């Protein structure tokens, strides 16, 4: 099914804020087209790990390779690196002063230097991909949470990233709006997008992911295919966490 060519390799990653060890030696691989799910209690370092992957955080030590390139190098063009790594946030973070289309167009115009017409064509295509072609001219405050998050996904997709990072993409949504976002993510997976997802949607993880990583206190406790992690967890901590998560 998915080719196990690692497009993302994380090697012994550490992250420290002051006295707090947020990440304590994370080693992880994700293959092209795979969906990797990061689960674990809050404060376990999942989001920090994700944020290291596009250098919103700079790790204290360790390496991250994206498509063979070490993105933890000190002198690296972060703007170029980030272009290739899409990120979707819990709070959507759409630009409130721009329409849905404008949100998608901004980086196309200013980062990739595309003409207005070209950027507009791409934006409309990506909005169609997330099922929002009829909302292109709407402003964020005229859209539901689910629609906003789909625009945010389209905004990342437009740059044709090699990897998409999702940081709790459905946590801020009303329950009835979660489905539409997960549906888009599922469809991305079917299109062959490599995704790393931090989320509490265990059912979705079970159904759609290739790889589940359970983290606690900045370390990986247990990792494996979803069937193994969800049905036959080895570590006691994983078992306790999953029991609580399902309640």
């Amino acid at each position, binding site marked *: 099914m998915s080719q196990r060519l690692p497009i993302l390799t994380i090697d012994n990653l550490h992250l420290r804020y002051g006295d707090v060890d947020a990440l304590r030696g994370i080693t992880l691989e994700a293959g092209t087209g795979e969906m990797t799910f990061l689960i674990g209690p809050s404060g376990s370092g999942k989001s920090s790990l994700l944020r290291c992957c*596009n250098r*919103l955080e700079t790790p204290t030590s360790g390496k991250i390779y994206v498509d063979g390139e070490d993105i933890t190098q000190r002198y690296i063009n*972060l*703007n*170029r690196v*980030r*272009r290739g*790594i*899409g*990120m979707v*946030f819990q*709070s959507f*973070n*759409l*630009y*409130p*002063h721009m329409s849905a289309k404008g949100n998608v167009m*901004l*980086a196309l115009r*200013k*980062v990739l230097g595309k003409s207005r017409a070209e950027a507009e064509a791409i934006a409309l295509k990506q909005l169609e991909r997330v099922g929002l072609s009829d909302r292109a001219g709407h*402003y964020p*405050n*005229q859209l539901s949470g689910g629609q906003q998050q789909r625009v*945010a996904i389209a*905004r*990342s997709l437009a*740059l044709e990233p090699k990897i998409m990072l999702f940081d709790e993409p459905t946590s801020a949504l009303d329950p009835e709006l979660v489905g539409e976002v997960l549906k888009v993510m599922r469809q991305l997976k079917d299109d062959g997008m490599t995704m790393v997802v931090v989320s509490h949607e265990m059912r979705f993880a079970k159904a759609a992911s290739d790889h589940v990583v359970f983290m606690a206190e900045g370390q990986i406790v247990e990792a494996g295919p979803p069937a193994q992690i969800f049905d036959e967890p080895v570590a006691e901590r994983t078992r306790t966490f999953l029991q609580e998560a399902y309640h």
Partner: protein
Amino acid sequence: MTRFDRFIDTFFKPEVMQQYWPDIVSGLFVTCQIAILVIVSGISLGLALAILRSYGFKVINLPIVIFVDLLRALPPLVLILILYFGLPNLGINLSGFLVLWMVLTLVLAAFAEEIFWAGILSVPEGQWQAARSTGLGRFQTLIYVVIPQAVRMTVAPLTNRTIAITKNTALGMVIGVPELLNQATTAQSFAANATPLMMATIAYLILFIPVVYAGRRLEKAYAWRRH
């Protein structure tokens, strides 16, 4: 002479009006000129300083904060007098017009910087992260994402501050700038009548009421699009 006649004679004497209206108009023109120059240069400089400050270089931020605090603390008149009467002793002769423009620009810039800075800080961190994660640089993020949102929040305080400082063009009077109030007080002493002051009052209203109104309109136009 009735009280009413005396009132008219003091503040609205037709002969005085007729004689001095050209002076008042020329003063209004000078005030207008300085006001526009101060607004444009003060707000631009304030915005530039706020942008510079957002880069977070300590060596640059300390002087900016000191500059801003000093200029906000000092009465503009003190600075005007120092520059106009003090600098010539160092061999630097600046015209009254130039001194007035410079001082008011710096004072407006100081207040505008604080207002823009508060606006920049009020834009949620997530906006920065979203923009940076798509590969926009720091400056691009400021220009396309943060500043447009910050400016919306600053319209009201900035309008108030701009009006307050622009009114200080009247301080030009003490250093011989032929602006509105200077023309009016000169005319008042020649005519031995307060009518020119009333004319200046009306001229100030004609000048600033539209600014106040424009500020209100801007505030409305910049409110978030709703429904």
